[in-house]
């Protein structure tokens, strides 16, 4: 970016968040500008002769034609470097904690604050020597940013050459030069711990790879039936009250990613507050450190300016890519992409563009695809072979819970995993309210080998058997609805009882229960195996003439129901105990039967 004299224009028109300025010749698309006497932050989204159309990231009340618009020569960018973790930002990376200390509980206008703390000193450990050859993406040194994350200071993309200077181990702030690199032309590039990257431009990588590993979430219905991979994409659509946000929070908590980026995009303020209060208390199961230490939050709530909502998803995904480039697995949650799409629609409407379906701009699908395409498992830049991934999980809030609307449909054309939240399940307080008949994951085949190797050889068979039972249940329920449960044969009624167990004892999972909130794959396997073993035994018993009602009275059913509350360390023991009890109790039923038969 070559900096010329800043362009200074004048406001010609104001309509909501959109401002048109004249005299803007010389400015570039997506350049940041300062608008009006209050210095509101805006971004150029259309250029026409000397007119620039600007979306303003702050409330525009009080702006008048004739006020100045000053170009900055910079594109809308994020600051990347140590100090970024544990932060909560608005949609254009203004740190909300800092804003709070300067303007109080309400966000005043025209405030700017650096995204990363400038004064703070970080302990930098060099990893290269003077004279060494480096290319973009190579690691110059490390900073232990939090106990969970080692922040790798990388050569910015596009810079390569010989290390002319590297700082010795010690305390530096993010603006001090920690390395100088002499490129082949002899020019020296100074490298600081902080770098900037324009949010609308994906960060480069070497190659994209096929996904092979699951992104485990600890949620039974997801990991068992509709798993997502590291580097994959998923959508959670659902009407209000179906638990999109709770599911997203659960994933942010338990997903086995190294870094979490959570974007609260046009949603409730209190939901961000909940995360801000809970995450510092929640502990990483492996290290015992607060989960906040691996988390970055972007909060542009529904009452905050709509243009910044549009920018928030790009801000988030750029930060995610930055950590991916360090070789980490990053999971990004966007709640909700519908609000982002609505922001697009609002801006598009103000630009008087030709609308597509339901008033959304015709490029809605393309923008969504561009966003989700920034997910993936990649070989990063740099001379060493480093692999990192970004997984994107987007919530969708369809109006009236209608999945045929444009945002859901455009999203489904792109994502590989679809978790359909179901209002009827939510009404029954069946949570997570993911419908097992309409959801899908296109990664099932890909992951089959991984589960076989890492969980159990018969994992896939169990999963298929359970899903077949659930399918069967929906058919049987159709019949029951027509003719009543009495008309079903004993074996089918047994199936209905078993599927009720799968639904209530397996699929239902309590997000706020200390044990049940997270379920390891091993525990999932044992639970599912136990229920299916019960199924097999019941079928056998019925074939031997034992009435279903008697089987249903067996006390062991209670133990199966409470299996989800058994802590991970005791689950193997508990599963064996249940199996033993089941065999025993069925045995005694059978014995009683044999005694009774001759007496007839």
């Amino acid at each position: 970016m070559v900096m010329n004299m800043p362009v200074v224009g004048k406001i010609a028109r104001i309509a909501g968040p959109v401002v048109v300025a004249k005299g803007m010749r010389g400015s570039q698309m997506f350049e940041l500008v300062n608008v009006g006497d209050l210095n509101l932050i805006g971004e150029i989204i259309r250029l026409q002769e000397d007119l620039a159309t600007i979306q303003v990231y702050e409330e525009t009340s009080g702006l008048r034609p004739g006020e100045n618009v000053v170009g900055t020569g910079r594109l809308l960018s994020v600051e990347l470097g140590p100090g970024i973790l544990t932060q909560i930002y608005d949609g254009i990376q203004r740190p909300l904690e800092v804003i709070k200390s300067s303007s109080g509980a309400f966000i005043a206008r025209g405030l700017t604050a650096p995204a990363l703390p400038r004064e703070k000193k970080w302990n930098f450990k060099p990893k290269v020597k003077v004279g060494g050859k480096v290319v973009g993406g190579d690691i110059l040194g490390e900073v232990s940013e939090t106990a969970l994350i080692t922040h790798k200071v990388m050569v910015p993309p596009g810079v390569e050459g010989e290390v002319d200077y590297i700082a010795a181990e010690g305390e530096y702030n993010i603006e001090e030069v920690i390395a100088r690199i002499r490129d082949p032309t002899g020019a020296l590039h100074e490298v600081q711990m902080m770098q900037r990257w324009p949010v609308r431009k994906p960060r480069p990588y070497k190659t994209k790879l096929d996904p092979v590993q699951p992104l485990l979430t600890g949620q039974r219905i997801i990991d068992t039936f509709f798993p997502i991979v590291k580097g994959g994409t998923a959508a959670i659509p659902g009407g209000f009250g179906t638990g999109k946000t709770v599911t997203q929070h659960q994933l942010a908590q338990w997903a086995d990613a190294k870094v979490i980026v959570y974007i609260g995009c046009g949603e409730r303020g209190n939901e961000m507050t909940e995360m801000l209060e809970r995450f510092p208390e929640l502990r990483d199961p492996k290290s015992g450190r607060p989960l906040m230490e691996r988390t970055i939050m972007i909060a542009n709530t529904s009452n905050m300016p709509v243009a910044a909502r549009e920018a928030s998803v790009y801000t988030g995904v750029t930060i995610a890519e930055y950590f991916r480039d360090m070789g980490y697995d990053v999971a990004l949650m966007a709640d909700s992409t519908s609000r982002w799409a609505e922001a697009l629609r609002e801006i598009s409407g103000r630009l008087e563009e030709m609308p597509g379906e339901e008033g959304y701009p015709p490029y809605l699908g393309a923008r969504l695809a561009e966003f989700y395409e920034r997910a993936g498992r990649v070989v990063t830049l740099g001379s060493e072979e480093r692999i990192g991934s970004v997984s994107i999980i987007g919530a969708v809030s369809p109006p009236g819970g209608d999945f045929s609307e444009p945002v859901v449909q455009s999203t489904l054309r792109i994502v590989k995993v679809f978790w359909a939240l179901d209002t009827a399940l939510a009404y029954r307080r069946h949570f997570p309210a993911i419908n097992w008949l309409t959801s899908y994951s296109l990664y099932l085949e890909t992951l089959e080998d991984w589960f076989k190797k890492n969980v159990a050889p018969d994992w896939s068979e169990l999963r298929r058997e359970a899903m077949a039972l659930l399918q069967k249940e929906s058919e049987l329920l159709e019949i029951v609805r027509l003719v009543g449960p009495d008309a079903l044969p004993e074996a089918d009624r047994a199936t209905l009882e078993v599927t009720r167990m799968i639904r209530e004892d397996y699929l239902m999972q309590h997000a706020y229960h200390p044990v049940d909130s997270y379920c390891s794959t091993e525990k999932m396997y044992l639970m599912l195996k136990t229920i299916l073993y019960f199924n097999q035994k019941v079928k056998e018993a019925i074939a031997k003439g034992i009435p279903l009602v008697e089987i249903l009275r067996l006390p062991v059913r209670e133990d199966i129901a409470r299996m989800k509350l058994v802590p991970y360390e005791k689950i193997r023991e508990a599963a064996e105990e249940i199996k033993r009890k089941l065999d025993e109790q069925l045995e005694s039923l059978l014995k009683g039967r044999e005694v009774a038969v001759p007496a007839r």
Partner: protein
Amino acid sequence: MSASMSALKARKYRTISEISGPLLIVKSVNDAAYNELVKVETGSGEIRTGVVLESAEGYSVVQVFEGTSGLDVDTTGVTFLGETLKVPVSRDMLGRIFDGKGQPIDGGPAILPEEELDVYGAPINPSAREYPREFIQTGISVIDGMNTLSRGQKLPIFTEAGLPHNLLAAQIARQATIPGKEEEFAIVFAAIGITAEEAMFFKNEFTRTGAIERLVTFLNLAENPAIERVVTPHVALTTAEFLAYENDMHVLVIMTDMLNYGEALREISAARAEVPGRRGYPGYLYTSLAQIYERCGRIHSNKGSITFIPVVTMPGGDITHPVVDLSGYITEGQLILTRELHRKGIYPPLNPLPSLSRLMKEATRYTRKDHMQLSDMMYYCYSEAQDLRSLVAVVGEEALTERDRAYLSFGEAFERRFINQGIYENRDLDTTLEIAWNLLIEYIPESEWKRLDPDVIKGYCPKYRGKKP
């Protein structure tokens, strides 16, 4: 509020070029500020107010709150006042009645403002919010037991024409307390496009309970200008913010009916020939509603709070109607009134199954240990009963198992004894939970109590306490 605007004086124009719906287009204006307040004077001397919706070099689009009927292009004068719409606020507003723009209409003296606040306020910084967790006892079983209200929560009532939502809103306002606490409270009531009779009902209710001295009323009745309705909620909430965040009061805001707000917004949008979103409503309906609802809450290091109960009519019972649907996406739950229960003579006809309080799990951490589990159990039993009712309609009751019949009778008793209560009946939480336990004991075998932990059963079930009222 804006540094740039304080420098501006009032400028008068007589250059209206077009009048369309509620909008005026004024030519030859070069310096109107976006959202600037405007005084409109008709040829006959009548004064109206408006705001600038769009400002450009050479023209400005003005929205007139009182409507444009009677305005003309030749004699009507438009004065740009050099300030945005502000509400004068003061503690003296308690006990007074105002119109939809905040002008006193009760014949009393003008308010001596302590402050003049911008009507749209500023967004609360998410990191300054405090999570609402203080349980408010409304004395209504189906709310307290299964869909709790917390201090700082926004919990709308979704209703249909002809249902007793006003009775319910008034009962909540009358009975809402935090057990064991006496604090300074206020009620802000905003009528948006409702009838004078309905407004009178609320006034009488509040008078009867003596809450009238703690009440600020804003009335935009059905007969008042429709366009004014787009600011009435903001005027009311600006007052609420002043009382809560600057005077440490706990403010309960009741607003009825948000549907009329949505319709006013749609009218303006149509007049501006904007591209519509769903069903003719503007694409920014969500943002506009959020800018109202999100003004409620709690703030760190501040004693006051704003709790918000908007009433939203579902036209024809359609919960997917845009105003209702988007409200549901923003608020922290919803209380849904249904005609089925109303026809059965149940008051409040509040169906707990589609209703929800998103803050309940947090609120119940500080009430009783059995509260949340008992609520889950009631949900489970009542939804089983509902499913069975539709089954019975097809196959008859004979086809049911013993278990199914137990749930069916539970459903009936639950409606009669738990949901149903008197308009002036104020049940404390213990009474509500006692009713729930007794229903379980009477109808549902203990082996089915799957949502209850054994220690909760042992600790709280009246059966094990050895006394059964």
